[in-house]
């Protein structure tokens, strides 16, 4: 730019102005960073970099290893040396009706026992204020229940975790 053949006064002037602006921006940033550094406001930068590195490394390692550990964990032995059946088979008394219920089937029983649940509920509880949930500055979430989730099948399908969102 400085060795421009068209070194008319106009282009020289505009180059001059541009260089002034560029300089100003560079010194702005230098000044801010200098202040942050001297006042020690960025002291934790290394710690953060380390965390990022560890996470990236962990993801690579987990992707590489054949045993992800996430699947098929219902048949393992836990750290206390125990194994458990897929459906919890502890038996106890229902505190509502007094009957003996198996743990893994307690929730569906209780639902009917207490008269709650989809069949018992008379009206829909869908809330119309969903747009409020995603307003950025409002982390104090006001939750309304949503009931539009598809049926989960029989009581045997106990372990499915689904998300109640709509």
């Amino acid at each position: 730019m400085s060795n421009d053949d068209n070194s008319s006064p106009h282009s020289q002037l505009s180059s001059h102005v541009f260089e002034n602006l560029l300089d100003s921006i560079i010194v702005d940033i230098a000044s801010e960073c200098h202040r942050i550094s001297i006042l020690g406001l960025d002291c934790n930068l290394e710690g953060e970099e380390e965390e990022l590195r560890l996470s990236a490394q962990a993801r690579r390692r987990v992707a590489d290893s054949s045993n992800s550990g996430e699947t098929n964990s219902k048949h393992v032995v836990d750290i206390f040396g125990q194994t458990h059946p897929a459906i919890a088979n502890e038996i106890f008394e229902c505190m509502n009706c007094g009957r003996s219920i198996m743990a893994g089937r307690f929730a569906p029983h209780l639902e009917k026992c207490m008269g709650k649940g989809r069949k018992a509920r008379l009206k829909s509880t869908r809330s119309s204020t969903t747009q409020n949930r995603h307003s950025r500055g409002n982390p104090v979430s006001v939750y309304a229940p949503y009931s539009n989730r598809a049926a989960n099948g029989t009581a045997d399908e106990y372990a499915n975790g689904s998300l109640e969102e709509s």
Partner: protein
Amino acid sequence: MSSTSSASNHRLLRRHHHLPPPCPHLASYLSSRGLRPFRAIHRLLRLRPSGRASLRLDVPTCASCGGGSRRLYACLACAAVSCWDSGHAAAHAGSPGHEIAVDVDRAELFCCACRDQVYDPGFDAAVVLSVRSAVAVSSGSAPSKKRRQVEYRPWTPGTKERALVGEGSSPIGPHSPPPPAGLRGLNNLGNTCFMNSVLQALIHTPPLRNYFLSDRHNRFVCQRRRMKRYKSGGGGRGDNSRNEKKVCLACDLDAIFSAAFSGDRTPYSPASFLYSWWQHASNLASYEQQDAHEFFISMLDGIHEKVEHDQSKTQDQDLYNNHTNLLTGKGDCCIAHRVFSGILRSDVTCTVCGYTSTTYDPCVDISLDLDPSHRSTKTGSMKSRVSNGEVESMMAGQNHGMSTLMGCLDRFTRPERLGADQKFFCQQCQEKQESLKQMSIRKLPLVTCFHIKRFEHSSTRNMSRKVDRYLQFPFSLDMSRYLSSSVLRSRYGNRIFSFDEENDDHVAGADDDDPNASVEISSEFELFAVVTHTGKLDAGHYITYLRLNNQWYRCDDAWITHVNEDLVRAAQCYMMFYVQKMLYYKASESASAS
């Protein structure tokens, strides 16, 4: 005041703000100028539209060469303006006493002899005050409250104490230590993994665990009390006659703690807890799967003991009182709030006149959005983005092309320009104007729960979907830059100043003299529990990873297994629980017998 006491005053200030000692030129300038050497500076400063302060000069040119606006410095001793590039500023600094100058464009102190930018608390205070007075603030500020201070005195055991401990204890055997206390599986009662995962995290939340294990809520005593009150006709007045009077979620939680730490390692069925919770949150009572975060909020609400002794108050009054208590007091209403309740600050600034309106809201968790755009994975690349009209340099939290928790928090506390359709009513302009909104954390809770909004609902298409994108999260987290004090400070260009958030009309000097005046509440946190969700929106599974004695354990309903920390780092997080570092105990790795 003598100059020696002002010199010691400056030393105190510099130490308090972690400043290195001044260069000899700055030091001699300060000592020659008495108590407040920069008192007159504020008359020379003006506020630029960008919010930055600069020197008010009609035509800034170099006195020696008449050169233009490049890096001009105004000598503090004689007000002569010189440019740097042609060496005129350095030449001017040759005369003794004229070494210190002010950068005309940036209102920064510069030592021309040392050729470096220097910093002084007194100067920064003058700049901040002049900037503030330039933005007229309407009267009617909130009543100023004296900041509650808790003095923390560190203590280490002396020789006598060590001897005492040595005599009364025996070393743990050479074989591997037993599994940590409190670790126990929870039976799935039928689609209740959402509940189990949150319960596992809470069982190992240090302040909560300590509270219940210290018998602070004895379920037998509480039950007797409730029975007595119920029998004596406590019901019958408005909302207090609800069924929930018989139910106490804290009692059921107490039972769970007792069971978890009993030493019995067979999986426990939290059946009575489910029963009580369904009575409390009757709208969520159904066999279908719930959202773990929704359960968490509902549960905290259940533990929260509403103020009962004054039954003449309406429910609205109760809510208002509680809200005020959480903002001004210590949130002592219940253990749930004492542990999880923090305060968020929201500043809305009018883009026309600069007037800022501030509101505070209590919160028990922080819900964060994942970043909206899909970015390609460029490892180690630095990008700058233009957003909201400002150029943002890539912060450390967005390196490696990953989405990160700190990146989400950066976005959470970033000033956001509200659209033209969301104009705010400005008190000063007395009309609706476009504004800038910025969130920050006024008070950090003991335990911070982060909730990642992985579920997108499209109201137009009436469908929901889950965002599976990986989010990086650190094991150690420093929240200081998200505090209101830091955000406020950076708004003023990171000036050295004690920004009193309660009362924005803070006067410099009073508190600055005492470095012990502002006790630093720790902003360092340690991760101790992660709730993850795997699978699809309507067919997924929650599990919790717990960090005990720096080992990670996977809690999948009744199955507790030991896992490598890599697995946790690589997991898809949904809720993360961080506790203040000073409450977090890292047991030593080896139990040595000596």
